[in-house]
């Protein structure tokens, strides 16, 4: 887990590094309706942290509380070391954060350059407008009016407005929703470059591939609470669960003659499901060498993040439906 302490806001309190984001037992209710329930997590400086969950899970509400846009009902929250609900430090805080909203929000009559220039003036140490135009790939559209840009180009401009202030912490609320595949890849590349430069990134998404491509750590929000968290490769026990060993059945060999129990799948492939892949591979490759068989297309497939996600969310939904929801609030945080 990366935990860079060399960011520009590497402040220390009593010798300890202050995390970029600290959330403890965060709750938010609107009357009887619970929007966020006992959520806890930390985001270290320089980290890319993803909040993954379906619509209505509480991702945007959580992020808006961290930005200081929405007040909380309970719990403790610190963003870059200050309480985002504290009005006395909000102006300072907003010079250090960047925000990309879930929906487009750009004035239609300004040109790309004009709207970036306007927003750059709000910050004490902004990036240069020309640099941002290059970063978001809108150099050829710099003098076009916003209303003449395509949806994907407007989305990229939105990202540009998020980074124009040269933020220490960037909030990205579903940043690639509405982008075509190449636009998504370009946005991912941009996020990676920002992260490599020391910017802490907190993104919400419901795309598994986005989490796998970008996030150092991920928390799954479901039913207004965190049901699991960890790295994308280990969340939900993904790194220790069953794997599938797959290869094409050699000519003249039957499934029954293989050294380990296996089953034949479509297309002449053999699949072996096991939690002990080392032993299985040892037995299988030893047999193949001894017998002189090639194991064409040999691969080891781990359970996908999507499978883990669906298992976590369906499990939580089932427990809730049965009234025996045993998920610890904020469980697994920081695992």
């Amino acid at each position, binding site marked *: 887990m990366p935990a860079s302490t060399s960011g*520009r*806001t*590497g*402040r*220390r309190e009593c010798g300890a590094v202050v995390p970029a984001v600290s959330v403890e037992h965060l709750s938010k209710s609107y009357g009887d309706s619970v929007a966020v329930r006992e959520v806890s997590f930390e985001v270290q400086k320089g980290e890319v942290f993803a909040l993954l969950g379906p619509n209505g899970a509480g991702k945007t509400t959580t992020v808006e509380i961290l*930005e200081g*846009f929405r007040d909380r009902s309970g719990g403790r929250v610190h963003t870059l*070391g*200050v309480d985002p609900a504290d*009005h*006395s*430090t*909000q*102006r*300072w*805080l*907003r*010079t250090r*954060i960047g*925000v990309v*909203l879930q*929906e*487009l*929000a*750009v*004035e239609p*009559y*300004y040109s790309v350059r*004009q709207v970036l220039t*306007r*927003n750059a*003036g*709000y*910050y004490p140490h902004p990036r240069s407008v020309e640099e941002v135009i290059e970063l978001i790939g809108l150099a050829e559209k710099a003098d076009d*009016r916003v209303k003449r840009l395509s949806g994907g180009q407007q989305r990229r401009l939105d990202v540009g*407005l998020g980074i124009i*202030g040269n933020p220490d912490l960037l909030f990205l609320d579903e940043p690639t929703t509405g982008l075509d595949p190449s636009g998504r890849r370009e946005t991912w590349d941009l996020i990676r470059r920002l992260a490599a430069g020391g910017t802490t990134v907190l993104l919400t998404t419901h795309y598994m591939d986005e989490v796998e491509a970008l996030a150092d750590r991920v928390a799954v929000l479901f039913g207004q609470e965190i049901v699991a968290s960890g790295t994308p490769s280990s969340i939900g026990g993904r790194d220790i669960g069953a794997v599938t060993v797959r290869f094409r059945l050699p000519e003249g060999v039957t499934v029954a003659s293989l050294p380990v129990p296996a089953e034949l799948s479509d297309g002449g492939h053999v699949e072996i499901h096991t939690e002990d892949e080392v032993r299985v591979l040892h037995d299988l490759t030893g047999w193949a060498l001894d017998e002189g068989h090639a194991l064409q297309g040999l691969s080891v497939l781990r359970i996908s993040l999507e499978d883990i996600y669906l298992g976590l969310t369906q499990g939580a939904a089932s427990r809730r439906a049965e009234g025996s929801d045993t998920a610890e609030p904020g469980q697994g945080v920081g695992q």
Partner: protein
Amino acid sequence: MSSTDLPVKGSFRGVSDVPLVARQVRFEQLSFWLNPIGAALTIGFSVVFVVIFESTSRHSTVNYLPINLGQYYVPAFAAYGVMAACFNILAINMVNRREMGLLKRLRLSPLPTWMLLAAIFINWMIIAIIQVVLVLLLGRLGYAVHGPHDVGLFVLMLIVGMLSFTAMGVGISTVVPNADAAGPIVSLVFFILVALSGLYFPVKAGSGLATFTGFFPIRHLILGLVDTFNGIPGTSPWNDLLVIAAWGVVGAFVSLRRWDWSPKRG
């Protein structure tokens, strides 16, 4: 750790904020003028109506008004310019900004709320002043309409009018549920009251219509500007000022109570 890493408290930085307000006003103005059709319609409406009414009836009189209609329409349409800019267009503009998420984006920037609201007010005040100046110049140069008779009271009436109608414009924008409803709701209220309050034809004092529209600020701004422009004896612009200011306080109260940065999408 440098001192710049420490949180700075407060949303007001004194004199150093003044250039930032001026800069925001410049971008508000740029946004207005970048839509030339919208700008022309906003600015031109009062000018066109002054031309129409002055050309057709400037020498006409009505028996309950001590001035001819030429002297009436110029200050009346100056009042219209203030109300259209600071109430009607501003309210629709604010609803559109809110529903497009533009207010939310600005809220999440370091631009303090007070600075944004100050820039919005100054922006619409500039547009209102442009209309007033155009109408007065057109009246003087085109139709030999002279005034204002009492410059100080006339300007005071304009300032209180701009402040109060801005507060009311922001206030009504907070009760409009979505962008589609903004134009119909705001304009319906505005244009009906403007017509009934005597913009297009003077309403006789003491009539039922005058009594009814006397509860609203529109008639008082029209009368206040007409009276101070012409120096009509026996009138009470202070009463008009008081009513306009009271409505401004109501508008400010509603604005503060119901203000929302997020889209309502109702």
